[in-house]
C-alpha cells in the first residue's frame, strides 16, 4: 500500500477550510462554540451592569495592578507559544519543547496569581452571593467569568504538558507540527478571552 493510500485511510479528504488537517478545523469549531459561551457570559454581565443602580466600580474594588501583570504574563506566554511552533517548523525540537515548557509555566503562574487574587478578595468580603460594595451579582459574575476562564487556563497547562511529551515521542519534528499548531490555537484563544475579560470585568 502506498504512503498516500495509508494517509487517505486516516484522513479521507482534505477540508477546504483547513487543508493542513481536520484536527485544526475541529479545534476552530470547538473554539467558536467556546467563544459563544464566553460571549454570552460577558454580554449578560454587560446587561446586568448597565441596568444596575449600585454596581461597584470594578477597578476600585478589585484593583488592577495584579491583573495588569497577569495580562502581560498571558501575552508573553502567547509569544512563547508561537516561538515554539516557529522553532518546530525549523526542525528544532529542543527549542520547541523549551518554549512549550515556558508557556506552561506562564499559565501555571497565571492560575496561581488568580488563586491568590480570589483568596484576597474573599478575605475582603467578596462572595458569590454578596459583597460590601453594592449589587450582589457583582461577586456572582466575577467568580463565574474569571473561574470559567481559570479552568480554561488550567486545562491549557495540562494540554501543553501533554504536548511536550507528544513532541518528544514523535519520530520527526514535522510530525508534530499540526498538533502543536492546534495547541497554540487553544492557548491564544485563552489569551484572547482574557483580553476581553480584563477589559469588561476590571477596567470598565
Amino acid at each position, binding site marked *: 500500500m502506498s504512503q498516500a493510500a495509508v*494517509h487517505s485511510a*486516516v*484522513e479521507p479528504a*482534505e477540508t477546504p*477550510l*483547513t*487543508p*493542513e*488537517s481536520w484536527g485544526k478545523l475541529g479545534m*476552530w469549531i470547538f*473554539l*467558536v462554540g467556546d*467563544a*459563544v459561551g*464566553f*460571549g*454570552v457570559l*460577558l*454580554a*449578560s454581565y*454587560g*446587561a*446586568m451592569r*448597565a*441596568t*444596575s*443602580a449600585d454596581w461597584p466600580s470594578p*477597578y476600585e474594588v478589585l484593583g488592577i495592578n495584579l491583573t*495588569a501583570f497577569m*495580562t*502581560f504574563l498571558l*501575552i*508573553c506566554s*502567547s*509569544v512563547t*507559544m*508561537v*516561538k515554539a*511552533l*516557529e522553532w*518546530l*517548523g*525549523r526542525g528544532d525540537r529542543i527549542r520547541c519543547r523549551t518554549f512549550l515548557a515556558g508557556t506552561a509555566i506562564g499559565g501555571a503562574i497565571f492560575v496561581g496569581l488568580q488563586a491568590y487574587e480570589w483568596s484576597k478578595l474573599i478575605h475582603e468580603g467578596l462572595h458569590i452571593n454578596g459583597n460590601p460594595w453594592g449589587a450582589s451579582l457583582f461577586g456572582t459574575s466575577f467568580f463565574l467569568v474569571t473561574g470559567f476562564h481559570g479552568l480554561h487556563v488550567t486545562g491549557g497547562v495540562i494540554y501543553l504538558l501533554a504536548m511536550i511529551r507528544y513532541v518528544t515521542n514523535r519520530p520527526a519534528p*514535522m*510530525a*508534530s*507540527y*499540526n*498538533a502543536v*499548531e492546534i495547541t*497554540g490555537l487553544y492557548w*491564544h484563544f485563552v*489569551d*484572547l478571552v482574557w*483580553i*476581553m475579560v480584563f*477589559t*469588561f470585568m476590571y*477596567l*470598565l
Partner: protein
Amino acid sequence: MTATTAAAHKHPNYMMIFWWLAILTVIELAVIFLPMAKFTIGVLLVALALGKAALVAMYFMHLRFEVRTMGLIAVTPLAIATLLVFLLLPDGFAVAHKSVPKKPAAAAPAKH
C-alpha cells in the same frame, strides 16, 4: 496534506505583535484615568480590547493566513454576543425601572 507532510506556517514578526499588545495594554490602563465622560472611556476601552483581540486572532492564531470563510466563522461569536446585549438591555432596563422605589406620595394634610 497530512500531519507528516505538514508545511511550516508563515510566521509574521511576533515580537512586533507583542510590543503592540503591550503598548495597547498600557494605553488601556491610562485611559481609565482620563478626565472624560464614562461613556467615552467605555467606548475607547472596548475599541482597544477589540484591537488587541484582533491582533491575537490575526497573527498569533494565523487567521490572516487562513481562507476568508474561517475569518467569517471566527467572528460569529462576536456578532452573537453583540446581538445578545441588545436583546437583554431592554428587558434589563424594564426590570430596573420597575425596581426603582417610588417617591413617597405627598403627605396628605392631617385631619384633626
